[in-house]
């Protein structure tokens, strides 16, 4: 963090932004500490509770304090996992703002780039310092947080949040790191395009947000789904811990019908089923085992976008300066 091991333009960038780096390091340590302490605390109390044979929500004597502590620790753990998931989802946007504004566009806007580019290092090297270095640092920090988040899900009292939830999926796998890299590349491109601090931050933040908002809508289509149909009206074909993409009723000819076909208008459900020759419910879904293929395909797509944005940024720089 004090830049002793860094040389050349890397030393300069770290020296100039060391305040921000220290702040980020402190926040990282605090986040890791929370992700370690809260799940351990909650799991520990839950274990003690299980051995105490105390019924919950009953304030009869000695069990009262115990119950309250368990409830609050469980609540704290749920809250932490939910908020940390959202924070990890939004982290790339914050990184995009930093790289686009203070790191690149501010130097272009204030004119200090004319000092930087007329030393013995090329503008391309200057931009490499401002993209590769943050990509490595922020990517490593995010990877550490994602690792901690996965551990906290495992170590806490019971798994929280579905594996496919919008704020859980990117917080538990490599795709979360890929979004950070994309944010850095989009930030560099935005900064070189507009060369002004606030507009660059706005554009980079918006572009990153759009990708983070759009990708969950495409996510379900990134890997083949499984189809299963139940053979009795009340069976559930998808099984537990699956991510259902589509569900409904299927008739004897295999035709898919809406799931609420026989719920409308309070008709006699059994008569409705018979009338429509319904053989049972069906579901199209991802199994939990699709988690890694989905992670890897989305990571690949995001990294490809990253490469495109980075190439465009360097190309733009080459057209600007000799």
């Amino acid at each position, binding site marked *: 963090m004090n830049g002793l091991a860094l040389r050349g333009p890397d030393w300069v960038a770290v020296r100039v932004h060391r305040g921000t780096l220290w702040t980020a390091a402190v926040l990282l340590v605090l986040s890791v500490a929370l992700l370690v302490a809260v799940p351990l605390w909650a799991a520990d109390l839950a274990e003690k509770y299980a051995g105490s044979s105390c019924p919950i929500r009953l304030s009869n004597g000695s069990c009262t304090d115990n119950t309250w502590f368990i409830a609050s620790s469980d609540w704290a753990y749920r809250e932490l996992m939910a908020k940390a998931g959202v924070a990890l989802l939004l982290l790339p946007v914050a990184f995009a703002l930093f790289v686009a504004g203070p790191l690149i566009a501010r130097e272009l806007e204030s004119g200090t780039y004319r000092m930087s580019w007329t030393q013995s290092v090329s503008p391309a090297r200057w931009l490499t310092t401002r993209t590769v270095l943050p990509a490595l640092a922020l990517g490593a920090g995010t990877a550490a947080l994602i690792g901690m988040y996965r551990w906290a899900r495992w170590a806490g009292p019971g798994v929280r949040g579905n594996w496919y939830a919008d704020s859980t999926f990117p917080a538990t796998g490599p795709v979360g790191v890929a979004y950070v890299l994309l944010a850095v590349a989009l930030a560099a491109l935005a900064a070189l395009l507009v060369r002004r601090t606030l507009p660059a931050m706005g554009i980079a933040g918006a572009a990153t947000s759009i990708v983070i908002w759009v990708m969950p809508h495409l996510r379900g289509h990134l890997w083949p789904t499984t189809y299963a149909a139940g053979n009795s009206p009340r069976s559930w074909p998808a099984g537990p811990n699956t991510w259902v993409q589509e569900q409904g009723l299927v008739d004897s000819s295999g035709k898919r019908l809406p799931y609420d076909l026989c719920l409308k208008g309070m008709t006699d459900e059994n008569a409705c089923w018979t009338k429509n020759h319904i053989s049972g419910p069906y579901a199209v879904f991802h199994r939990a085992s699709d988690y890694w293929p989905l992670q890897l395909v989305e990571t690949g797509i995001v990294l490809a976008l990253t490469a495109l944005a980075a190439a465009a940024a360097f190309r733009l720089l080459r057209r*600007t300066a000799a």
Partner: protein
Amino acid sequence: MNDTAIETVGLGKRYSRKRSSWALRDCSFRLPTGRICALVGPNGAGKSTLLALAAGLLRPTEGTVSVLGRTPGEARELIGYVAQDKPLIPQLSIADTLRMGQELNPGRWDMAAAERIVAEGKLDPSERVRSLSGGQRTRVALALALGKRPELMLLDEPMADLDPLARHQLMGTLMAEAAENGTTVVMSSHVLTELEGSCDYLLLVDGGRVRLGGETEDIVAAHTLLTGPVADLAPHTVIEQRTAGRGLTALVRRDGPIEGPWETAEPSLEELLLAHLRSPDAPDLLTPSAEHRTDTAVRA
């Protein structure tokens, strides 16, 4: 050895494709090494654009520019450049700024020289750049540029906004360093005569092109100020003339000796430059050393 510091051929720069406003157009000249060159011209003439092109901060729209026989990008480590607003990183201390010079110029940086320039200004190295006065800031910017031991110094309006004392001190520092290392220096100024005492070479940029280029002495010596009766001035080139009754005052570029009923005098540099600026149609003059030699300089 390369004896050309800067050479441009048909150099042009346009900032916006929509507007047909050329900051620099069809600009061809050569600057030999070892000179202290004044780049003069009115505001908006294209001086800063020319310096930024030579420093590799901009790419030409057309034509070529070569620096010390290479492209500006290849010559980066041989060039010292100080922009008009003396850009430095405000939150760094002077000592950190010099350390930055060392980090960004590996193998070239002369810390002792840079520290000496700072010390001559009685500056405290632990002071932050943000809190420096204009003159102190210029001194640190010069120390950063000179510390890399450049073969070519490009200074954009280096002495603007400085009081006469600071100007005198810094010019002294710059000239001493340049003389010691044989550095070629190009300094721009919109104050035409500000650099007269220091510079032995002249480039007059006006309307986006180089109108006069060459050794200051030779350029001045090529012109004569005439006063006397109105008469045909041929074969000399008239740069500017004024008639009052039957009397005539004219600045001419001589073609052979002056023969006629006139009193002649050598014009001052200021008279010469002003006459050219007032007469945009006067033909350009480049002395032989300022003529570009190659038809296509190194591709930028």
